[in-house]
């Protein structure tokens, strides 16, 4: 079915929350107000690794205006166990230890204690009076150092390596021996932050009836519910989480930081308590996503067929186990059909905040390595880099080293769209000055996307509209992309559907807004709930008309000569049996993975080493673009985050583990002046496992930009960079021997 056979899908209606968000009326977490609200402030570690010898809150508790002070000792000390509360399998002690340190601090910025007071000023002053005595320990800041013998150990035992993933198929060693060309290179990437503009914020009221009410900015209200109830040793039903509007997340607002602490403060004070992170807290106490060291070796025959590949990936886990290397290991060669592969990935503890997902977590690092090596192979073989990729592209039936075979995927179609794009054949143009050099690079990338449960309820109004409730926080227009799928089924315009994101008491369990799953899975639930509505309304029409069978198409119910629009029949609900409420829940296992690619033109100033992005084209397989503007927006946003990752962003740590650039001035995210327009081309290879063919588009777009830019810089200056970020000093240094 082509897009044009749909009435709603593929159109670009205004979003339902648009007016609220352009007038300042939308309530984000820090905007939430409540009578009797207390303001909280936290004490955070000034050391990257230290034993907590003493935490004395006496003076803070006596400070005027202070109502409650809490430390890790205030948590119920339940026995440790492994839980999976939406962030993967984690010991409770790690979740608890990350929100308030006990015994030891593991990174600078690690929360130690919190104060609630009648004003923010009082809370902040009182927090300064909390006395913390540290016994500093040596710290370790990169995966490579942390894996070395004799490295300081974060959690005891005999190693900082918390997991080793190993995937293999065929015999890569033997295959290398028969390759015409073998390239092996080592790459490193800096730790980077998700960089959402809204700092974390939460308000909690531990009510007098024993129920805990939470209002917060989160990608997953049910994750917050489950973590809060787990850490406070309450049944899940005792906690109600209302997600406010959310100012960006990108994976970094899946972990729970503030809510359990605010809950403790509320329990002690008997009043609602709000905690808000400062920007420094965000950098030092949330996120980031792992820095990494990767060694990738690939071999090809003389025709450019990739025959063998090996990868060694060491990713920072941060302070607790459970980093992003698993996904990195699954994605590192996913774009290619290579018979012989060996992949080893290591999750390594370092004295940095516990790492969090960031848009296709783990994949951009790996793709930077793989796509750089593939580029080098193409150069050596004098092959067009897209032609080489096309020759090796994964397609339906291609087996990945981690086991599964691809179902229908759009890797080939994405590469073909890149080849056919006018950008790819356009001239680069003359450099803007004598010291400048221009180059073009390409890269491709893959991300799985996930399934997980979603629920949706649709109630029909007598005026022919419908109210749709769901539990997926809307970070980028998903109220509308979900409602559009219901509208398509119900045959009504999407502005007749009023979508609402509701609290955890009001809707069935819904997984995080993450993994590119919201339009896919919650949209699927909306599709099914809308079908449930139509099924019930057909029965109403049958009753009204005394008809055997009622047909429904394009918003019209019909039996023989008789017909009625959706709105007309909705007006007869009360006489045909009362309200019509449709509902559905889904739990798709896996989702249709998405391939994406970029074409990047750069100009490098060989004097300063500064790279300017001249032109940038992003191509991605959306499966089906429900709302093309929002798909483009995801592609553009992911591209620019990738540009920042490539050229500037990094945690700049001193040897003591102190972040030296914990502000938006010094952690240089791209501004509007740093980037050109981002051209987009949506490819649609429908996902056979979704009613409308949706694949999910949030993440794959960030995977290839760093590699594409690295390849463009190589094209411009003739030197390849092996470390991210490729900032001006790094580029200048790389050219050092060259100029």
């Amino acid at each position: 079915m082509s897009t044009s056979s749909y009435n709603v899908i593929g159109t670009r209606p205004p979003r339902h929350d648009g007016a609220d968000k352009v007038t300042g009326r939308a309530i984000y977490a820090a905007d939430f107000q409540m009578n009797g609200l207390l303001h909280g402030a936290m004490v955070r570690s000034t050391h990257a690794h230290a034993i907590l010898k003493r935490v004395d809150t006496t003076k803070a508790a006596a400070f005027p205006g202070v109502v409650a002070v809490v430390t890790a000792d205030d948590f119920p000390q339940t026995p440790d166990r492994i839980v999976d509360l939406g962030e993967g399998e984690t010991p409770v002690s790690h979740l608890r230890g990350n929100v308030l340190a006990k015994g030891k601090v593991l990174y600078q910025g690690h929360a130690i204690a919190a104060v609630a007071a009648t004003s923010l000023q009082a809370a902040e002053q009182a927090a300064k009076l909390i006395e913390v005595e540290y016994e500093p320990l040596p710290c370790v800041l990169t995966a490579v150092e942390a894996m070395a013998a004799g490295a300081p150990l974060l959690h005891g035992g005999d190693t900082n390596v918390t997991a080793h993933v190993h995937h293999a198929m065929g015999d890569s060693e033997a295959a290398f021996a028969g390759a015409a060309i073998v390239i092996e290179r080592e790459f490193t990437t800096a730790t980077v932050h998700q960089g959402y503009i809204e700092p974390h914020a939460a308000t909690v009221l531990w009510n007098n009836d024993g129920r805990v009410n939470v209002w917060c900015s989160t990608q997953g209200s049910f994750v917050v519910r489950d973590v809060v109830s787990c850490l406070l040793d309450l049944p899940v039903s005792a906690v109600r989480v209302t997600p406010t509007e959310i100012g960006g997340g990108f994976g970094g607002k899946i972990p729970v930081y503030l809510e359990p602490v605010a809950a403790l403060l509320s329990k002690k004070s008997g009043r609602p308590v709000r905690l808000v992170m400062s920007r420094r807290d965000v950098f030092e106490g949330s996120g980031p996503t792992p820095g990494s060291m990767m060694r990738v070796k690939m071999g090809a025959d003389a025709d450019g067929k990739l025959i063998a590949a090996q990868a060694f990936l060491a990713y920072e886990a941060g302070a607790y186990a459970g980093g992003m290397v698993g996904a990195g290991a699954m994605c590192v060669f996913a774009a290619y059909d290579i018979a012989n592969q060996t992949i080893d990935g290591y999750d390594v503890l370092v004295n940095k905040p516990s790492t969090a997902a960031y848009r296709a977590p783990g994949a951009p690092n790996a793709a930077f390595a793989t796509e750089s090596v593939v580029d080098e192979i193409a150069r050596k073989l004098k092959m067009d880099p897209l032609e080489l990729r096309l020759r090796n592209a994964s397609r339906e039936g291609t087996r990945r080293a981690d086991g599964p075979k691809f179902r229908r995927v759009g890797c080939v179609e994405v590469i073909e769209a890149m080849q056919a794009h006018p950008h790819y054949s356009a001239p680069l143009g003359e450099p803007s000055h004598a010291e400048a050099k221009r180059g073009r690079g390409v890269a491709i990338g893959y991300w799985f996307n996930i399934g997980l449960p979603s629920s949706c309820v649709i109630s029909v109004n007598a005026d022919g509209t419908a109210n749709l409730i769901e539990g997926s926080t809307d970070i980028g227009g998903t109220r509308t992309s979900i409602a559009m799928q219901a509208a398509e089924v119900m045959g009504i315009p999407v502005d007749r559907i009023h979508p609402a994101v509701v609290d955890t008491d009001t809707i069935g369990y819904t997984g995080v807004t993450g993994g590119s799953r919201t339009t896919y899975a919650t949209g699927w639930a909306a599709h099914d709930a809308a079908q449930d509505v139509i099924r019930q309304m057909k029965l109403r029409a049958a009753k009204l008309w005394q008809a055997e069978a009622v047909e429904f198409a394009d918003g019209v119910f019909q039996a023989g000569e008789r017909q009625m629009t959706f709105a007309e029949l909705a007006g007869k609900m009360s006489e045909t049996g009362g309200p019509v409420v449709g509902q559905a829940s889904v739990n798709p296992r896996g989702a249709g993975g998405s391939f994406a690619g970029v074409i990047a033109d750069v100009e490098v100033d060989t004097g300063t080493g500064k790279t300017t992005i001249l032109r940038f084209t992003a191509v991605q397989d959306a499966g089906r673009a429900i709302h093309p503007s929002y798909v483009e927006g995801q592609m553009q946003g992911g591209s620019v985050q990738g540009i920042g990752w490539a050229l500037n962003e990094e945690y700049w740590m001193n040897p003591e583990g102190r972040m030296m650039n914990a502000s938006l001035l010094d952690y240089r995210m791209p501004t509007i002046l740093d980037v050109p327009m981002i051209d987009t081309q949506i490819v649609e290879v429908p996902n056979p496992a979704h009613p409308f063919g949706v694949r999910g588009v949030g993440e794959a777009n960030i995977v290839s930009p760093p590699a594409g830019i690295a390849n463009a810089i190589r094209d411009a200056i003739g030197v390849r960079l092996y470390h991210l970020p490729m900032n001006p000093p790094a580029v200048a240094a790389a050219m050092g021997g060259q100029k």
Partner: protein
Amino acid sequence: MKKTYVSMQLNGEPVEFLAEPSQTLLECLRDTLHLTGTKEGCGDGNCGSCCVMLDGTLVTSCLVLGVEAEGRTVTTIEGIAAGQKLHPLQKAFIDHAALQCGICTPGFIVAAKALLDQEPDPSEERIRLWLANNLCRCTGYDKIVRAVQAAAKEIREEKQA
């Protein structure tokens, strides 16, 4: 410390409030006056989400003290629409999908309005230069530039009509 009495014009209406000496205008707007449309992304002048107009000049309200607003005129995102009618920038941001999460949007709209009030037909380069202090992490800026261009065009056409 004693609070200071402040009176100012806020979105066309007189308001009076008490400010702590160290409270920023941003905190006074949000916490005291409960106008939470102006956002705090950094608190140190580097994200632009707290942009307001102070006596007709674009400022980051996290770098202005509440007491400095005494006797002055402040316009926030809440004062941009004309009653029920959205400002062309507000409408263009919706129509051109120039917001995703929307946290940066009030700052961008206030800042872009300050530009269009002075320069009805800015080039793309000029728009990018003017908005360089406003960070958006979601959109990649493409659709923001296009929305500002579209709003500028609409305002020019409205004026001619």
